[in-house]
């Protein structure tokens, strides 16, 4: 079984975010980066599938030089090798452009199962995996919680709204977008980190992939949203703020 996991590097969760000087993209100075959270669950699912079925887990990531760090983390956790699609710093990919690049890289590999996160924490399109499936001609399912291989099929548990779920049977090859969930994420061991250094990381330039690179959307402006609700905000000393809040809750909102 060959499993490809598509992993995106995104700004760390507690980053303070500002628009850059052109007002059209994020100011990237001083940012630190991490693996997109649902992608970490996709990687975990891939590693567990490999433990069950044997085969190979290949990590795939598109981005500038810095994404090598996230790729190494995935290798240290147990992925077998990696493909890094090299992009210039600050390249903005819309989901169709991203999927075109990633699908080209997958095509050359002929995977049985492609796993992506269900959504990126930075751009939040929630689309790249689904578009990859369309471009590759693979079947797909989104918001997947569990994957159960059944010969040349997989049976997956999908999350629906309001606490509902649904099982779906799909033929291989398949693209699945993985939801974060109850499966515990593993840590990289010392041994794993050491071994990662010897694993193959193939770097391909985006040009080499000859993917169509037209953007389907343009970002005109990035900004901190204007808050419009009249909320009463207390700040400063914690004790004073707590006192004021308690008073309001008792005498104004009358809820205690």
């Amino acid at each position: 079984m060959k499993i490809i996991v598509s992993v995106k590097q995104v700004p760390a969760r507690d980053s303070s975010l500002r628009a850059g000087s052109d007002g059209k993209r994020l100011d990237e100075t001083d940012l630190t980066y991490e693996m997109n959270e649902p992608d970490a669950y996709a990687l975990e699912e891939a590693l567990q599938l490999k433990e069950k079925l044997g085969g190979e887990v290949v990590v795939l990531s598109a981005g500038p030089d810095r994404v090598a760090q996230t790729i190494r983390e995935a290798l240290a956790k147990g992925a077998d090798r990696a493909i890094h699609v090299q992009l210039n710093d600050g390249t903005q990919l819309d989901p169709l452009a991203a999927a075109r690049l990633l699908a080209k890289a997958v095509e050359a590999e002929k995977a049985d199962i492609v796993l992506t996160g269900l959504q990126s924490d930075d751009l939040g399109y929630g689309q790249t995996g689904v578009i990859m499936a369309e471009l590759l001609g693979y079947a797909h399912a989104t918001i997947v919680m569990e994957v159960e291989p059944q010969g040349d099929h997989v049976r997956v548990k999908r999350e629906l709204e309001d606490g509902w779920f649904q099982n779906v049977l799909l033929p291989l090859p398949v693209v699945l977008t993985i939801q974060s969930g109850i499966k515990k994420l593993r840590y990289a061991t010392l041994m794993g980190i050491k071994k990662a250094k010897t694993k193959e990381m193939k770097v391909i330039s985006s040009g080499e992939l000859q993917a169509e690179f037209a953007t389907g959307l343009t970002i005109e402006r990035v900004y901190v949203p204007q808050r419009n609700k009249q909320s009463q905000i207390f700040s400063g000393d914690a004790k004073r703020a707590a006192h004021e809040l308690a008073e309001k809750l008792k005498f104004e909102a009358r809820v205690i």
Partner: protein
Amino acid sequence: MSVLVVMEQRDGKLSRMSFEALAAGQQIAGILDVQAQAAVIGYSDNAKIAGVERVFALDDPLLTEYTPDGYTAAIEQLIQAQQPQAVVFPHTYQVRDYAPKLAARLGKVLISDVVAVKAEEASPVFVRQLFQGKLNADVKAASEQQFVSIQAGAFRVSEAPAARAPVERFPVKLDASQIRSKPEAPFREAQRSIDLGAAEVIVSVGRGIKEKDNLPIVEALADVLGAELAASRPICDNGWLPMERQVGSSGQTVSPKVYFAIGISGAIQHLVGMKGSKTVVAINKDENAPIFEAADYGVVGDLFEVVPALVDEIKKVKA
């Protein structure tokens, strides 16, 4: 030329989000100066759709159960026949599953999860959130034909009485061999033992709590208020609290008298589960956290200081 709004129906009922998408579609139609039209797969007569030029009903035995292959093929045929200038969807889980595929098949990008539409010289500019609501982006489609999905709660449904739009059956051509996935019947996990929906006061905790061992800090607040404890998704994913205490689009929907959001950033998937609360109190160290937008009262500060202080103050005012 038209704007086509694809509405979603379940058990013979159109969802609220479908009507919100319709409101957005009407606004986009206004900007483009064209008519709005609607499409419903599995149309049933009790669907009352007004304010559009007509409604296309798409029916086929192969569309009885949702599959991405079936829905994509069916709506693609309608789009090819009508050539709408914009196609608008509610950003539901179902739409997330097939609309990116449909747009890609036509060589377009779906502008997903849109929260507002503005006009710029007779063409629409779409506002979408980045970083789970911490930043906004104004986005324009590069193509003539545009695909957009609309976030829950972002548009107000028109209550104005209007005449029901005429319904036209649109025949689709589908073949069973086109449909690769086999869906089984939807199900729910074992009965919930906690009904957060009935709680009057809820203390809800998010990733700001950092560790499971810190939970007693918020439990103390829940105790003094006689409140139920709830959580955002990552807390339940980590197994720190049981899944049945999760609030949000994939958890429970609650509407207590007071909802305390503690160390919760306020991502839309959380907000949809709690914005029916009468009073919302947010405690967060980040003054720009989107949760403050939904809050009536907020404290900007470190929950590890603010929550114990609040427990003391509540004891005082209660005494």
